[in-house]
């Protein structure tokens, strides 16, 4: 398995939306390599004919009657919000300045 570079770890952190600083990158990058090296041992263990398992007991099409049941009120749903306004979650701007 290829070793992942510090730059790749920075890219992963970006994809995972975690703002790692240089100290954290220095600390975490070698640890991720050790973990990936250990888990790489499974390559080739199962042949192409083995079906994948995503769930211990695959249940499909779990339906219920289409009956309205009470849910959270807007007030309850917003109770933990960092910021709320007019019964809505208030969030920072989602568009960049250039957009």
């Amino acid at each position, binding site marked *: 398995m290829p070793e992942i570079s510090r730059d790749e770890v920075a890219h992963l952190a970006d994809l995972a939306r975690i*703002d790692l600083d240089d100290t954290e990158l220095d600390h975490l990058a070698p640890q991720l390599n050790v973990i990936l090296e250990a888990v790489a041992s499974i390559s080739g263990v199962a042949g192409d004919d083995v079906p994948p398992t995503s769930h211990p007991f695959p249940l499909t099409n779990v339906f219920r009657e289409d009956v309205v049941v009470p849910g959270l009120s807007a007030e309850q749903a917003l109770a933990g919000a960092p910021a709320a306004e007019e019964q809505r979650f208030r969030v920072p701007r989602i568009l960049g300045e250039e957009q």
Partner: protein
Amino acid sequence: MSVPNELITRTAAELADALAAGETTSVELTQVHLDRIAAVDGDADAGVHAFLHVDPEGALAQAAESDARRAAGETRHLLDGVPIAVKDVLATQGLPTTCGSKILEGWVPPYDATVVRRIKDAGLPILGKTNMDEFAMGSSTEHSAYGPTRNPWDQTRIPGGSGGGSAAAVAAFEAPLALGTDTGGSIRQPGAVTGTVGVKPTYGGVSRYGLVALANSLDQVGPVTRTVLDSALLHELIGGHDPLDSTSVDVPVGAYVEAARAGATGDLKGLKVGVIKELAGDGWQPGVMARFAETVDLLKELGAEVTEISCPTFVHAMATYYLILPAECSSNLAKFDAMRYGLRVVPEGDPSAEAVMKATRDAGFGDEVKRRIMIGTYALSSGYYDAYYGQAQKVRTLISRDFAAAFEQVDVLVSPTAPTTAFPLGEKLDDPLAMYLQDLATIPANLAGVPGISVPAGLAEEDGLPVGFQVLAPALADDRLYRVGAAVEAALTSRWGGPILAKAPTLEVAR
């Protein structure tokens, strides 16, 4: 400080009997446990620190209601009035739920997890929320953002994890019962290293609704207690179908209490037991293996037929688990985005939502959570998906097949629960792989969805610390865990002249 009240040393079943006989009240039981918590639990710096949040007012109010019901001749359940502690990963309406993370500091859920609803409806007062590794990632409870829990047997050592708080609370007599969750051993391994009983039910046997998911295909809620019978009582209460969890299995709850009572008679004639060959060898502590071998001999004395069973793919279980779990958790934890609840860190200037998200997740998540999210992100990224996640899902199939083949030959499988006894705090904190090895014996059950129990097997010669004996059964045959667990418990308790926790040191008063 006064001598602790004798009531705290009794089992939940005994407390239920005392309530029924009118010898005590729920208010008294709740108060003696709150007193015990106040005396020994301490804080992040000293004491057991099993609790992140204690709710004296709420617990005593629930206890008073229970007493009033009983006085009016109505009880809702055998355990009505017996107090309980709840792992902080389960949503509790009106009580903080942090999952051991800074990102959820101060969050109060607007609803109850189904298992919490069930214990409230049955009348069990909730003493508080127990400490855990952040988002249940870890085997030592040291990854809690609020400071570690300490093992009541030796407070310089880990209580196991991720549910170290629930196990330590029960071991330290701060609660007679607790709820835990087990994704790769988080109920069973803490049980092993604290000398308590922990059960991971069959996947789908207990509702996951309101459990803050670590890995949806592996997580399961289960009982944490001091005796097998108490686990059976609690399992019957929390188990059963829940329409709010689409992975909940729609079958009746098993007769676990009956199985535990039958097992306690000590008759295991005709039971076929398989010793898993792969779960032994290098890296397994000699004192752990010695207690395990003795317990296997004990099963033979009780009439069981014991054979060795090979499950060759189990050697790949850890690698499989540490791909599937990070993949699922990286996706699950994407919901902590600083928009709807939890922490929001706003960098200077006029930051975008994305910048807020990144700053919040950096400040709110600890190292282990970051490691796993990034491993998962990597394993799921295009170009690596087939080699990592896809391959892990296939090996998962092979592990299930090993279980299926084994259970064609035997009724239950056994192994030590964890390869070592409780290790010193800090020893593996910055060595993720060494920490992961703690779950070697417990992980296969989660991958295959089968149930498992850990019961105390005695103390290791070299360090005098508890060793756990694990029993695994086929899916939906959880009753076998209780039969075998209770038989082992009854025989060993009689051999020791009392429960294992009678050998634990008296706890110093924390402050």
